[in-house]
């Protein structure tokens, strides 16, 4: 195929983007522009916004609460993106390559359903249930620790600034695991089973099959899941809202919750808009870096 016909051929795909771009403009593009405009004003949500130029951003740069919320967010990324992707990958491989083939598809899909269920639970409810389990007085976690003779470890998990963030992280791992698992398992269904058969007949151990068959075959999904869960971690709001409200003493505050506080609790809408604009820019920069890395890692199909 010559270069010109190939270019014309690519142009032929443009109409498929029209509905997506039109809807995007109305639902996301225009509101985002409005949000940026609001971030340049002082506004309490009603009445006329007062022009403030970059005052909100100057305030933000010197706001220690904002920067410490970012440090917390790094640990939330570990709990929501890195750990679940790793565990999800191993679980997906075990379920597909081991359970499915040795015990049949039914146990594999039942286990997948069980591990995915936390994703189905509305976050409002998950928060209530975990508060019961982690209750310092009669919660199940402390009760179990007592029953196995580890009373000394019983603790006010969410109430102590030293453990609150770690506890939230454990809950987030519980919430998140199902997502990578299901994406990876659906990706592995594309893989020709004879690849595994051949590797096994060649005497490849499970670990080798994992490294040389499973991971390379679902590389696109691994990139997608990592980026997606990282974005979700940067935007995390619901779990913080229901578990700790950013406390105790800001120990679990994150930028997204901090912006919510300014939008709705302090009705400092301009400042809230500035926080969410900065957060958006950070996420977009991260997305672009990530997509470039993904592009570089993917061989151009010939």
């Amino acid at each position, binding site marked *: 195929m010559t270069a010109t016909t190939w270019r014309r051929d690519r142009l032929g795909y443009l109409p498929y983007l029209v509905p997506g771009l039109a809807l995007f403009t109305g*639902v996301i593009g225009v509101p985002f522009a409005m949000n940026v405009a609001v971030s340049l004003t002082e506004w309490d949500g009603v009445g006329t916004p007062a022009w403030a130029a970059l005052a909100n951003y100057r305030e933000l740069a010197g706001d220690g609460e904002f920067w410490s919320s970012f440090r917390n967010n790094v640990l939330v990324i570990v709990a929501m993106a890195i750990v679940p992707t790793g565990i999800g990958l191993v679980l997906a491989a075990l379920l597909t390559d081991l359970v499915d083939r040795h015990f049949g598809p039914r146990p594999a899909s039942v286990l997948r359903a069980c591990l995915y269920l936390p994703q189905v639970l509305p976050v409002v409810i998950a928060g209530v249930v975990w508060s019961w389990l982690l209750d310092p007085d009669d919660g*199940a976690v402390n009760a179990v620790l007592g029953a196995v003779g580890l009373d000394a470890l019983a603790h006010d998990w969410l109430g102590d600034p030293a453990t609150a963030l770690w506890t939230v992280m454990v809950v987030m791992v519980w919430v998140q695991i199902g997502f990578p698992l299901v994406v990876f398992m659906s990706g592995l269904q594309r893989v020709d089973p004879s690849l595994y058969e051949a590797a096994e007949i060649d005497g490849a151990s499970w670990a080798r099959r994992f490294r040389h068959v499973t991971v390379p075959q679902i590389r696109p999904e691994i990139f997608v899941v990592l980026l997606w869960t990282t974005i979700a971690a940067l935007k995390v709001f619901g779990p913080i809202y229901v578990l700790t409200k950013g406390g105790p003493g800001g120990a679990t505050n994150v930028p997204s919750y901090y912006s919510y506080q300014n939008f709705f609790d302090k009705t400092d809408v301009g400042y809230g808009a500035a926080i969410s604009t900065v957060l958006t820019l950070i996420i977009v920069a991260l*997305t672009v870096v990530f997509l470039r890395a993904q592009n570089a890692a993917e061989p151009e199909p010939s």
Partner: protein
Amino acid sequence: MTERSAGTIAARAGGVPALGRRGGGKRRRGPSAYATLVALVALAAVMLIPFAVVLLNAVKTPEDYSANGPLAPPERVSFEAITGFWERVGFGQVLLNSALISGSVAVLAVLLSVLNAYALGIGRIKGRMWVLAVLLLANTLPQESLVYPLYYLSKQVGLYDTRLSVIIVFTVIQSAFGTYLLSSVLGAFPRPLLEAARIDGAGRWRVLWQVVVPVIRPTLAVLAVFFFVWTWNEFLIPLVFLVGNDNQTVSVALGVLQGQRLMDATMSSAASLLGLLPTVVFFLIFQRTLSRGLTAGAVK
């Protein structure tokens, strides 16, 4: 029997007897396979503990709860809390609204994702990475920052307090993930399949529906499940947009009652149980679609 297990059997038929090591039937299961299975079952059980707690408290009486705490088994099974919650919020209507909104979003967002990803992944149009980065904004924007502008815009076009407004907003937000996942998957789509279809005289539209979509159907099913569940559990935007009682969704009804502290713990549990049952049922139904129609043999 699924296509995949058929494929596996074909592979066994080709490889195993020739080596003469194993007979027919199930594969060899070593002790390590059993150990792994036991470990996975144990993990699954731990993951399910919070659900057991919800179930436990949903069928308790408030007196039982305050006497014995949230973790004791119920003295007797009572459905008072469940029926009480159902009647208080008119749960039938609320359920219908959620099903309508989440169902529409699941279908429309998958459709939109396929169209976008076809142009980006298969078409590989110029500047696709930037288009993708922009489209991803739909999900990367913190929703708090969208609420004020969307509220204002929906009033302008007369869609405020309609289910349609929420359907449109979430179709766009959810399709960002679908566009990204499918673009990545389609970027690695085998070119020979496409070229064979083009040589047979199929246009882009027919190639999309007759070649591309059938191959990625398992992934589309997964996307539909995700979109349904995610939309079902959305709280902030439906809370702001659906102020009328007739339009409320399950999550909003739940969250509002929770916020007003009008519910005791047993009713909260009952509400939770009713709120999560439909998505669980939906997922379990789709589980079966997920393992059907697989095309492992077609893509190498």
